[in-house]
């Protein structure tokens, strides 16, 4: 394996973080091509938590907690570049709005959600109240909605807002434990989460509010992503990426890297940006940029 950025072949891949590296698994249809799995990036001194992918510029973005920062690199081969390095304590989840060209992240120590342009400029705090342990965050660029989960042991919840933090609402608060993973499938309009407390994988249509269980008895989910019929999550007990068929509610496959240590964030690196309906553009800057220190 090469320790710097290794260009990915065309096609759709899963990208996930494991102990100082970002690895990829090529997808063939929805199946993991496990023998094609290898490291994309080696950052041996870092602890990478969140991973996100920008399908437009084909860049991978990640959060890192040893020297709290957000960095990015081209998956076609390129140097990792830090884009945000100041005023962060524990950046965890990261999400990209490929249409709006912005990124969103959670900070579990500062207890807030922030947004910035993909180059790190125009940074702004959009949520800074009623957060205890915010972790997973995702965007639905087509509808202009943001979703995040807070695993606060006293009152876990899944929330939504517009991309400027306005119209904030709690979507789920009952029968949650540790909702670590969150993903949104634009084709089916389903928001799905993986819970390390209730050990369930569940979905809901955020507009309708109907909730359905996909799978019970999962072990310890951390990160989560979706592609077509499958949900893929990383598991802290199994040290593996697990594929689950959303429609049959059955585990489809598992990939366990050679190195046995915790897996963190996971993202789908699409061959092409997902096509959707005409987007509702809701800028996070609608009420003017503010300084994150203010």
């Amino acid at each position, binding site marked *: 394996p090469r320790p710097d950025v290794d260009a990915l072949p065309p096609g759709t891949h899963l990208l996930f973080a494991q102990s100082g590296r970002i690895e990829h698994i090529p997808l063939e249809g929805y199946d993991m091509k496990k023998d094609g799995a290898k490291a994309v990036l080696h950052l041996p001194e870092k602890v990478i938590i969140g991973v996100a992918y920008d399908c437009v510029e084909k860049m991978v973005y990640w959060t890192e*907690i040893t020297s709290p920062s957000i960095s990015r690199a081209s998956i076609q081969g390129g140097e990792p570049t830090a884009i945000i390095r100041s005023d962060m304590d524990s950046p965890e989840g990261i999400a990209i709005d490929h249409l709006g060209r912005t990124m969103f992240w959670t900070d579990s120590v500062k207890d807030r959600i922030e947004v910035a342009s993909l180059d790190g400029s125009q940074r702004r705090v959009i949520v800074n109240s009623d957060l205890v342990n915010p972790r997973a965050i995702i965007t639905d660029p087509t509808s202009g909605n943001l979703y995040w989960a807070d695993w606060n042991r006293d009152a876990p919840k899944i929330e939504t807002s517009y991309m400027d933090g306005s119209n904030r609402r709690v979507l789920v608060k009952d029968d949650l434990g540790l909702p670590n993973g969150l993903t949104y499938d634009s084709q089916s309009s389903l928001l799905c989460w993986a819970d390390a407390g209730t050990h369930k994988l569940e979905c809901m249509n955020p507009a309708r509010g109907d909730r359905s269980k996909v799978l019970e008895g999962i072990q310890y989910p951390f990160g989560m992503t979706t592609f077509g019929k499958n949900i893929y999550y990383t598991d802290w007990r199994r040290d593996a990426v697990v594929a689950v068929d959303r429609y049959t509610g059955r585990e489809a496959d598992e990939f366990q890297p050679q190195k046995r240590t915790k897996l963190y964030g996971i993202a789908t690196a699409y061959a092409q940006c997902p096509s959707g309906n005409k987007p509702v553009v809701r800028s996070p800057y609608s009420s003017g940029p503010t300084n994150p220190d203010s």
Partner: protein
Amino acid sequence: DATQGTSGDCQPCPCPAGATCAVVPKTREVVCTNCPAGTTGKRCELCDDGFFGDPLGQSGPVRACRACKCSDNIDPNAVGNCNRETGECLKCIYNTDGFFCDRCKEGFYGNALAANPADKCKSCSCSPLGTVDQQTGCSQVTGQCQCLPNVAERDCSACQPGFFNLQSGNGCERCNCNPIGSTN
């Protein structure tokens, strides 16, 4: 670099037994790629997240990686719970603080090491009227707030017997009742 044509082209990986290594093409730096369980870093010199130690003994004796030692005052679902080398706890919960989450944080008192989280650290809740400079901190152990003159109670919320006017904010004043005409 196997293309130089000398017997020294290939050198053993500078990594612990079992680990493989690779050369970064641009910088020619050698990095270990499959460190032994629980370790990571360029030379497998670091512990995984949630563990601390000095597996290669780079800054003293070898200390094998072990789980963060934070007095049961961290949450296993959190990331980055302790410094990977020193073990300093970074995400104390239950209102605890300190290198090992072994004391109450500022503004709280009690026993950070109590078994039951409800018995750990309680808020000082000093009464602003009776406390010196309206301080919010108190004694770590007893929870005693620093009271103004002639003010009583742990939280400085009452006058001592024979004193009145806590509301003054300067401490309590002597009642000066005539002993002959008073009931006590």
